[in-house]
């Protein structure tokens, strides 16, 4: 199957005009598969960390959202042990007007503002709600341990 023009255009723009703190590089042998890194946003417990993710554009993209997953271990109420992300724009709120760029920005924003009320990793969310200080500390420790 040939690559839709849209994917080519998006990839070109990701390379020529990258989002600060985010890189996305397509695989050589599968241009629908991207290696992504997101820098932990400053002011968040993830600051200083470099998080690796994988992103895949399914055949039905852009009618269907891209599939994104954290490869780096991260302590976050909306990201589970397997790196799966709970984010509305990746699920029900996906719209073909969104792009890889906007999705990655949303994920970056999710790191800045965790949402323990809509959790994916329940234990993390509990900790976040009951003892936020401790949770943030753990998140920082994990960032130092895994995201360097």
């Amino acid at each position, binding site marked *: 199957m040939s690559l*839709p*023009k*849209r994917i080519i*255009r*998006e990839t070109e723009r990701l390379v020529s005009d990258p989002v600060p703190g985010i890189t996305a590089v397509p695989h050589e042998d599968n241009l629908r598969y991207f290696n992504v890194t997101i820098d932990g946003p400053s002011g968040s417990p993830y600051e200083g960390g470099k998080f690796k993710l994988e992103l895949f554009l399914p055949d*039905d993209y*852009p*009618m*269907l959202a891209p599939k994104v997953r954290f490869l780096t271990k991260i302590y976050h109420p909306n990201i589970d042990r397997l790196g799966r992300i709970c984010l509305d724009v990746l699920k029900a*709120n996906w*719209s*073909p*007007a*969104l*792009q890889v760029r906007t999705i990655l920005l949303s994920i970056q924003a999710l790191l800045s503002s965790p949402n323990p009320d809509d959790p994916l990793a329940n234990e993390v969310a509990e900790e976040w709600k009951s003892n936020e200080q401790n949770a943030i500390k753990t998140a920082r420790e994990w960032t130092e341990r895994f995201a360097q």
Partner: protein
Amino acid sequence: MSGNKREIGRFLERHAKIIAPLLEGHGIDFSATLSPISNRKLRTGDSFYITLDCFATDQLFGARPLDEKDLENSLKTAQHTKSTNSHFVMDEGAALISLFKKLHLFSDNNQNEEASEVISFGESEEENNKRLRDQRSEENDGVLTMNQLKSLYQSTESKFEDTILPDSIPNDLLLELRPYQKYGLSWMLFREQEYDLVGLNNPQVTDEGKEDFKKLMTEISGTKNPLWKECKWPTLSSASNDGFCEQTEEPFYVNLYTGACSHYCPMIQNHTYGGILADEMGLGKTITTLALILSCHEDKSYIQPCRRDRYAHKTTLIIVPMALLSQWESEFAKANGNTRRKCYIYYGTETLGDLSLLLCENPTAPTVILTTYGTVQSEAARITKTGNKIGLFSVTFFRIIIDEGHNIRNKSAKTTKAIHSLSSSRKWVLTGTPIVNRLDDLYSLLVFLDLQPWAKYYIWRRFITEPFDQGRDLNDAFALLKSILDPIILRRTKDQKDKDGNLLVSLPSREIIIERLKFNEKEEILYNHLKAKAINVLTENMKAGLVLKNYSSILTHLLRLRQVCCHLDLIRLPVTDISNEDEDLKDSLNMMADQATDESFRILQDLEKEEEKSKLSFEKLLAMKNEIYQSYPDFDDVECTICTGPIEIETCVITECKHCFCLGCLMEHFNFQSRLHTSINASNNLIVSQLPEVPVISKEVFCPVCRQSIHKNRLFRTFKPEFKGYSASKTDSTEAYLTQMEHTHERDYYIRPFNPYGKSSKINALLSHLQQIYEENPGDHVIVFSQFTSFLDLVEKELKSYTCNFRILKFDGRLNVDQRQRALNEFNTKTTDGRITILLISLKAGGVGLNLTIASKAFLLDPHWNNATEFQAIDRIHRVGQSKSVKVVRFIMEGSIEERMLKIQERKNQLGEALSMNDEERRKKKVEEIEILFAE
């Protein structure tokens, strides 16, 4: 048994039966030697051996005429013997054959057995039948398959490869012939016994050479008489070789019916001038034929032209399908280099009357008269009424050529009978498919050629049809068929190689793509409704065992389904309008099924009402338009957020929330969203027959940009102002009005409400293909095929209203000759402004013969029951003269009857069914096909 006038013993009865009649005759001499079993003296009642030597005498090989009459006479004899033959008395011939059988003289091993089948004296009828049955069950694979047909073709293909007919190069032909065409011309001249002309103008051919190949060709141009079998003389035992008989290796031949014997291989020479030129499509049968006409345009042996003879000795009559009339005319004009040779079109008002004035005794008689099958048939009909021989039937032509000769394959059709009763001294059949469905197709061609004795139906039946039908004596029948055809048929195929190993014709590559399309919601609802109806009717009929009785009613249902696959509006037309286009239904129209149509019509109306309701009100429309004009002063820099590309005015749609998208992108969004919904609600839709009375088509879909709810019926489309191709029909009156108003504004676009279901899925797909072709290859030529002329009308309308970048032409059965020619002429001119030219052709009117190589792209909008018909259509552009690679797209609606039709096509290709089936099997097959069509 008497010897020396004294009875010494008796033969067993079964031996006596054979020998007794032979003793009466003079064909065989007997000499008997007695050898006792023991040394003691013989007594009455003892058994003993008798060695009986049989000697064939010269009288056995009496001078019998070995011509085609022999076949008829023999068959009559056989009939006679069958009825009168008692178990005890044989006539001499039968006895002789039995004797030969006993002695194993028939050269082939299994010949004995076959011979016993052919003649059934000795055994009782019952026994014989049982034997036949046994044999049939063993020979299950004996039916003539497609492969056998192919090998039949192949053998006729290769036949002349090695023979050394020289090429001919005609004088008056302006066109250059390809080598194989030159060869074809030589062969045709040979078949007409114009030996002096073979090798015409070819410097390499000497008179001696001509004599040689003449001899050679005559040798192989006969058919071995199938009634005769080859026999070998037995080796003489030393005891009987007492010097007065000769030992010979030469075989001799025995007639299995009369017992006649011959030293020479009995051949049936055919005295037909002409034959079948069966070159595959695109090899230039027309050119070769014109070369023949120009090389040999008159009967030279006819010395004193006289009107009373009514012999149009200078005129060749060419009968062609109506669609090809003008093409032949122009081909003739192109090829003809001699101004004295004229071509006269005999068609329409220019018909009837006595042609002998024009054609006989007239030094300037036209060389060619072109006419159509229809003309011949209608003249024949008039003759039956009046009894006067008029028009084409008033003279004997020098030569008659029928193009697309398989048109007369049905021997009892009126047209066929009319063609058969035309007279001429030479006859030719041009066809790419000498066998369309069954072997009897060939028979009708042989009758036309008057190839005796095979043109007698009882002979053809006995030796060809019956063996193939019953699957017995297959190999013999096959060999016979081949030997009948070999001399009179010339067939070359495109992938055949010449002696240097090059392909006869190298055509550019051809790509055929099946594009599967999805129904839109409206189409799907209607399709499912009609399908449920059809299944109901079928199940009822199946239960009652009336499938075949109500076959036409079922076909009507199928037709309706096929129509919905093309365009919903087609079901608004009464079935009678449509059925004219569908051969299957022509004769057996059933109006009962139209009740179902009324119902679907009501559903369609309900859907449309619903659609109307969901549309924006007139006031709202006006307001929206103004808002949009304000938001978008122009369309520079507007990007579609779905494909991230710039938006073209021609393909832009605007939502209620005033966001712009490419039409295709937004429709994909709609479809994807509704598919998501359907898969969630799938359980509700499983049972088609429980459709809601007024089905709801739309599910909620949101704008990709602002997530407001959007609706297909509330979109706008933009158009370029200079485009005026759109003609407002009565339903669009408000739209037309709105458009009018906006022309006063200075703007580079204007907008109109979008009608999402206005076009069928197929037309949409076609449009996007055509748009792409226009962008990539401006000025290109495209052909579009459909079986439904009413669909082509709709396509024409839609294409015209879509853009002015298409030049649209139409070619169907409703056009007369002039109109057809005009359409083709226009198609063959190039546009200067980059517009692409699109020829809409009805499969039936334009599927055969036409040469449209200016186009290299074709679309087949709907599948035909017969795959070959589609390929013939494709060959309109994929043929000699095509320089570009050919691309063909076949549209198939996903999950619809059309997919099932593809399956049936496959099945037909595998079975080669028609060749081997009898009526019973054919009926069974029909039911099976219907079952395939509705299988879940």
